[in-house]
């Protein structure tokens, strides 16, 4: 059940939602709502944007300015929204396929620009909406609708990708620890004033990924996540062999003195106007 204070952020008119009962994406939505509520951001100034996928259906359920775009393109839309109105707090949600396959180019360039958007990548290691095809984060050896013999494609480390591309806040959590999700999201949303924040939240898709990989119930997945999660502080002391197959959670990048893109664009405006 949603926390009482976040109910005003829900569009009950648009319910029931399309997610399978028990899908990890609902936990992420609730964490986002709690973070927005706790930060007291006026609803009218919140923009929730997304691409296409199960995860990307989220904006419809949130009573804010919501933008459900095309597959992979949400960060490019959000870039235009932010430039046009830097006052808006933008939480951009996307799936692993949406954000790192079709939208991979927009993703690295949003990081590079350090534009003030909080991107939440809901990683369930699969293309949920289209029926469980392999995504760039499907683990090697896992089965998928398009990997019937087990996937051989190496996977992306999304946090490393974002950090390498220039995001100034990068963190990871899993839906097995919603409190941690909420805390990280709050920091990531506040970081928006300084630039691009990426939060990867490991979710799960029990119906598509789980069914083929011996985790067909939501509880199997929560248990799996709990057993495989390692805090960053712990991980720093572990060998690569020990870290094999583990999910490292925590904050990886937090550049406090970063300067956000729309803020930097004001310099351009100043220079242009001085010359004119």
């Amino acid at each position, binding site marked *: 059940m949603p926390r009482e204070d976040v109910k005003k952020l829900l569009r009950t008119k648009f319910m029931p939602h399309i997610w399978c009962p028990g899908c990890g994406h609902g936990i992420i939505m609730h964490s986002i709502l709690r973070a927005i509520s706790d930060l007291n951001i006026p609803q009218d100034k919140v923009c929730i944007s997304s691409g296409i996928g199960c995860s990307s259906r989220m904006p419809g359920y949130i009573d804010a300015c919501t933008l459900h775009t095309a597959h992979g393109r949400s960060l490019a839309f959000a870039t235009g929204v932010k430039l046009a109105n830097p006052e*808006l707090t933008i939480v951009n949600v996307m799936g692993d396929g949406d954000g790192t396959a079709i939208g991979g180019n927009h993703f690295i360039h949003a990081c590079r620009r350090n534009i003030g958007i909080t991107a939440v990548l809901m990683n369930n290691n699969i293309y949920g909406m289209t029926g469980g095809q392999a995504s760039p984060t499907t683990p090697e050896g896992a089965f998928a609708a398009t990997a019937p013999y087990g996937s051989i494609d190496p996977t992306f480390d999304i946090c490393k990708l974002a950090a390498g591309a220039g995001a100034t806040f990068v963190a990871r959590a899993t839906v097995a620890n919603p409190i941690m999700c909420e805390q990280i999201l709050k920091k990531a949303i506040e970081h928006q004033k300084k630039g691009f924040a990426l939060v990867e939240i490991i979710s799960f898709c029990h119906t598509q990924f789980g069914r083929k990989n011996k985790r067909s119930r939501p509880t199997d997945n929560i248990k799996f996540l709990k057993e495989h999660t390692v805090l960053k502080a712990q991980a720093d002391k572990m060998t690569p062999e020990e870290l094999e197959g583990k999910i490292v959670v925590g904050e990886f990048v937090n550049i406090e003195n970063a300067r956000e893109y729309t803020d930097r664009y004001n310099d351009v405006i100043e220079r242009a106007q001085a010359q004119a």
Partner: protein
Amino acid sequence: MAQNEFWQGNKAIAMGAIAAGCRFFGGYPITPSTEVMEVMSEELPKLGGKFVQMEDEIGGIAATLGASIAGKKAMTASSGPGISLKQELLGYGYIAEIPMVLADIQRGGPSTGLPTKVSQADVMQAKWGTHGDHATIAYAPCSIPECYSLTIKAFNMAERFRQPVLVMADEVIGHMREKITIPEAGSFEVIDRKKPTVSPEEFVPYRADADDVPPMPAFGDGYRWHVTGLTTTEWGFPTNDAPDIDLKANRIIRKVERFRDEIVEYREDFMEDAEIVVISYGSVSRSSLRAIRELREQGVKVGHFRPITLWPFPDKEIAEISKRVKHIIVPELNAGQMVLEVERAVKGNCEVHRKNLINGELYKPAEIMSFIKEVA
């Protein structure tokens, strides 16, 4: 004081956009459209507007749509392969009803084709390029002053009908330089999108007014609403019900078709007693007119009809002409696109002669003269 300049077509498009109130440009460079974005990168910040060079054409149109949703008049520009890439999101603009302008400076294709050469190959792509049905509005300038004035018009129509509008120049028009007298601000109409007049509590995002166009608040204005590329009810939420789908799918076509007579523009020269008519647009129309002037001096009864809106197509007007002339000649820089629309309008009333050039060259007046002489 009206001011004279010697501008390139692409510059005139950019400056026309700014005169129309455009304050956002998102794009990606591609010949022969690049100068539009270069001028925008220089001019927009002077006015507090924003320019962003995106990572690709899809990003360019996505950012443009996003900026429009957040309340700015916005545009992007491209050519050839870039126009193909933008199609999915152009469709998004039609279904989600987001005003924006796309300048298409046409070059030869398919694929990378002829990057630096002229063509008029996007006539049908503009109408049918995105999947699904919608109404297209597209202007084809034939001069530098028209690059300016028709871009203003494109913005006005985009704002009025809440949808993407195209300015379809071609490489020659985009790169040509010509004198332009800049109209003074206030001497031309500037239309802004309708804002809701009801309170946020009473607001139904896609409930259309009597003109079939719903008012549009900006994100951040105090109205909370959902924008999606899915077919929705008037509440903006996805629907799978045939009657709801019917309403939405037909309204986005009807809202333009109803005002077809107000939107359609064309120009006629030497048409009063014409027995032969050349129908051409963009750069080709300049060669045609030159040819026609010379032939008129020789006593040939030939006239010129120039569609200014490629879409909606001036079919009614051409149908009327076809009842009183013997021959219509359609020279185009493609393998035969607009001629299909002409034939549809003419319905066999007179002979239609298609003339097509796809080697990257422009028709010379002498060539058009010979086409006319063939039928005279």
